[in-house]
């Protein structure tokens, strides 16, 4: 059996390990933190986990019947479902593109480089043709739009718009008035279906159990500090504790930037790589608070977006843009069995003056204040806050960005993170990228780890 190393024991790391192990590799996963799971501990949205990815992993998980999204605005909780003006018609419009987006997202992105065979583009071209003339033209029109303009066209009230946009914006560096944010909302919505029963915890349990059953070796508190490259190919990894593990296959699920700029020594990189990897944009805009509640909040709703309307969502983005402490962050709240994840949109990675203890305390107070308009904050028993800087430090997220890289027209599909890296195989022999910074992007899909491992 050939040896394979997976860097990172998050969802994509475990997924990659399962696929590699299934294919006959002897797999070891190295996780820097004390526990496995990575972003499973901070994200809450499981609706985007792709059924084909779970199937490839041999994991069967029940889905909750799609629970309507709740929206807290001006002190009240409302349900954003098809009864809201325009939402049903808009969802039908999204459904027109779901086939194309799902098919693009379930395979490696097409190779668009000049020396790639032209037939690589046939698949997507065919999927595009199925949309028909009107559909293709419409997609070309929607792509560059601002999310707010697009949803306005459907007559959706701007308060409900905010609930539909907010979860999609976490993966971007945009507000609802940024051009191309419509595309982010389209991808996020098209890729989302019902959430997994039991949420992130259930997903993590299933991934861990499956990996164990396949005999994957898992080492926590084992930080990989160097990827050894010999004659243009990987030969092993060095760990923080001084060990060296030989391996000719290394699949990294940490960000493309960390992998290629920190773990691989600059002299091992092909000329020019350092420059374009440096330019990958990874500006985090979300802070996270995890807490335990003594009784259900928001009436037990599993997903609530707390922000007034697209204007307040845009203002939250402005704070991140100007590197200010968020005055009124837009909150995305996920609740599961007494565990609550609060994703606060509007917190910059590179806060002016830095994320001091004082700044972090202010952020935490702000989160409590925003929540207190809707819930009894006395129910919150234990809470931990991660600023984007903490997310970078603790979870190794490049730029503190929840998805290792912003979703943008030049950073999605075949451009994620760069045309020469998008198909998971790097220019270094045996080194693969399979983290959230890769295709498919738009939401938490679990697709990157699977597709990267399949490409090994």
């Amino acid at each position, binding site marked *: 059996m050939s040896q394979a190393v997976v860097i990172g024991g998050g969802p994509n790391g475990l997924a990659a390990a399962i696929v590699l192990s299934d294919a006959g590799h002897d797999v070891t996963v190295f996780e820097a933190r004390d526990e496995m799971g990575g972003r499973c501990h901070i994200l809450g949205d499981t609706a985007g986990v792709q059924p084909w990815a779970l199937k490839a992993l041999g994991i069967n998980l029940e889905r909750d019947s799609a629970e309507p999204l709740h929206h807290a605005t001006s002190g009240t909780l409302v349900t954003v479902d098809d009864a809201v003006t325009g939402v049903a018609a808009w969802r039908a419009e999204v459904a027109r593109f779901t086939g194309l987006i799902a098919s693009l997202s379930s395979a490696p992105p097409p190779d668009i480089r000049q020396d790639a065979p032209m037939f690589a583009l046939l698949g997507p071209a065919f999927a595009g043709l199925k949309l028909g003339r009107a559909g*293709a*033209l419409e997609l070309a029109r929607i*792509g*560059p739009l601002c999310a707010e303009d697009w949803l306005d066209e459907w007559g959706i009230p701007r308060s409900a718009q905010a609930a539909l946009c907010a979860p999609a914006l976490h993966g971007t560096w*945009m507000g609802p*008035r*940024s051009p191309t944010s419509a595309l982010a909302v389209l991808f996020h919505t098209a890729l989302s279906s019902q959430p997994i029963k039991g949420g992130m915890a259930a997903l993590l349990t299933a991934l861990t159990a499956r990996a164990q059953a396949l005999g994957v070796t898992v080492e926590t508190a084992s930080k990989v500090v160097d990827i050894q490259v010999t004659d243009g190919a990987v030969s092993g990894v060095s760990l923080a504790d001084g060990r060296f593990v030989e391996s000719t296959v290394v699949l990294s699920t940490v960000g493309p930037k960390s992998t290629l700029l920190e773990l691989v020594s600059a002299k091992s990189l092909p000329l020019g790589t350092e420059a374009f990897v440096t*330019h990958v944009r990874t500006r985090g805009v979300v802070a996270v608070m995890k807490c335990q509640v003594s009784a259900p909040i928001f009436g037990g709703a599993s997903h609530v977006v707390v922000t007034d309307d697209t204007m307040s969502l845009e203002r939250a983005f*402005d704070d991140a843009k*100007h590197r200010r402490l968020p005055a009124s962050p837009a909150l995305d709240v996920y609740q599961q069995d007494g565990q609550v994840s609060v994703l606060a949109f509007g917190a910059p990675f590179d806060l002016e003056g830095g994320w001091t203890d004082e700044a972090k305390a202010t952020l935490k107070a702000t989160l409590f204040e925003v929540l207190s308009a809707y819930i009894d904050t006395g129910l919150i028993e234990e809470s931990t806050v991660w600023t984007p800087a903490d997310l970078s430090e603790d979870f190794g997220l490049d730029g503190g960005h929840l998805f290792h890289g912003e979703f943008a027209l030049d950073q999605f599909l075949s451009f994620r993170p760069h045309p020469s890296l998008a198909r998971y195989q790097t220019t270094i022999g045996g080194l693969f990228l399979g983290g959230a910074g890769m295709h498919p992007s738009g939401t938490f899909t679990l697709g990157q780890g699977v597709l990267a491992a399949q490409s090994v």
Partner: protein
Amino acid sequence: MSEKYDAIIVGGGHNGLVCAAYLAKAGRQVLVLEKRHILGGAACSEEIYPGFTYSVCSYVVSLLRPQIIRDLQLSRFGLHVLPLESTFTPYPDGRSLMRSANPDVTRQEIARFSAKDADVYPLFGKAMGQLARFAKPIIDEKAPDPMSYRPAELMQLLKMGKRFRDLGDDLALLQYKLTTMSAVDFLSEWFETDELIAPMSCSGIIGTMLGVKSPGTAYVLLHHYMGEIDGSSRSWGFARGGTGAISMAIARSAEHFGAEIRTNAGVANIKVKNGTAQGVVLENGDEIDAKIVISGAEPRLTFLGLVGEKELPDDFVTQLKRYKLRGSSGKVNLALDRFPDFVARPGSGMHMRGDISIAPNTDYLERAYDDAKYGDFSQKPFMNIVFPTLMDRDMAPPGKHVMSIFVQYAPYHIKEGPSHWPEKREAFGDAVIDTLSEYCPTLKDSILHRQVLTPWDLEQEFGLTEGNIFHGELSLEQLLFQRPASGWAQYKTPIRKLWLCSSGAHPGGGVMGAPGQLAAKEILMGGAC
């Protein structure tokens, strides 16, 4: 009624006049109808204050197509383009940066901020030059229709695809990034100095309701480099006599070729019968028929205003209603008693003979945009300034000067509602002068006359719907085969015998003349008149 005219052109702006001149040159009987008392539309010069000539709206020659200058013999008819020598940026702390046509000077100037950026600047220019060569044919051809199966369309697309592929992986990626990224993100991949990135990035936002950090604003950077490859014809510059001189030269050329031009002849509506344009009805009630009607007006005004919704297919009306105009800029023209000194670099030397950008840093520009986003004019706006009198002494009495200030952001949709602009006009003008006074403290005392144009004024006076200076946002979804509506981007319209030749058609706004020329070409090729 007999048809005396082959074509009636609604609007005597520069595109209408270019279209008229080309049709007349091809032997057609053409009538141009202009609502205002003078020609040129937004490309006009007027003596608003005795002795001082303002380029009231548009103030520079931006990419005026060299073939138009040649074909219409514009030099013979009085067009004289003076080069803009430089771009000068003062900073509040007293520093300044001048980028000039002389690469050695520019290098020294940038090196005071960053040696690295000074090295990169010419490399950036070279890369952009290569992209400009790729993109240039796009503005000189009609937009291909990607959904058509007609051989000619497929050939044009294939040719474009081949040229894109021939760029090679690196340049093709750069072209893609240029088309999709924000101006600041794009420039930040090259440069490290915010003081340099800021003034460079603002060419991406002129006329749009977007910020320098909004995706899709980078591609306009290319326009400057396109101008350079147009070469000696100087497609960027300043017209002697003001921007109106361009329109006047085109008008004289059109008349020379036999076109008839009437001013004070506003069109009230376009007559349509059975889905076919018959002619026009003037505001004074006169009816004039022609074989075809060509509109040089903005698309929404043309179709919803002059034609009427009931004559149009539903999906076209939907597209027009979605068409984004959202004017974002205003203009302040000043008559000055004497030349005002900029603290950062006094005097009226070389650095004042180009355009001057008030764009000290990218956060400043973004904050200016933020004000507009929430329905206010910018308290500290981005400004682009020209002193025409330094290049053309005849625009003001001896020793006096004209200062042309393009101001952004002045959103049409202020929170009080656009019709409340007149009440805010002077406050807006004050914000402009107050901001400028920080750079130029003697300015206030030298003002003899001030003309403030808000987006509301641009709409009311010049027919620029919502005050949009480009007849529609130059955003990605409103370019090429989607300008102004998908399926109707080749100057034809859903109304038979009605054509569009305005900036609301491909390739869009600016004093380029390209929509007028390309429309004329399509009309003549199809034998429409």
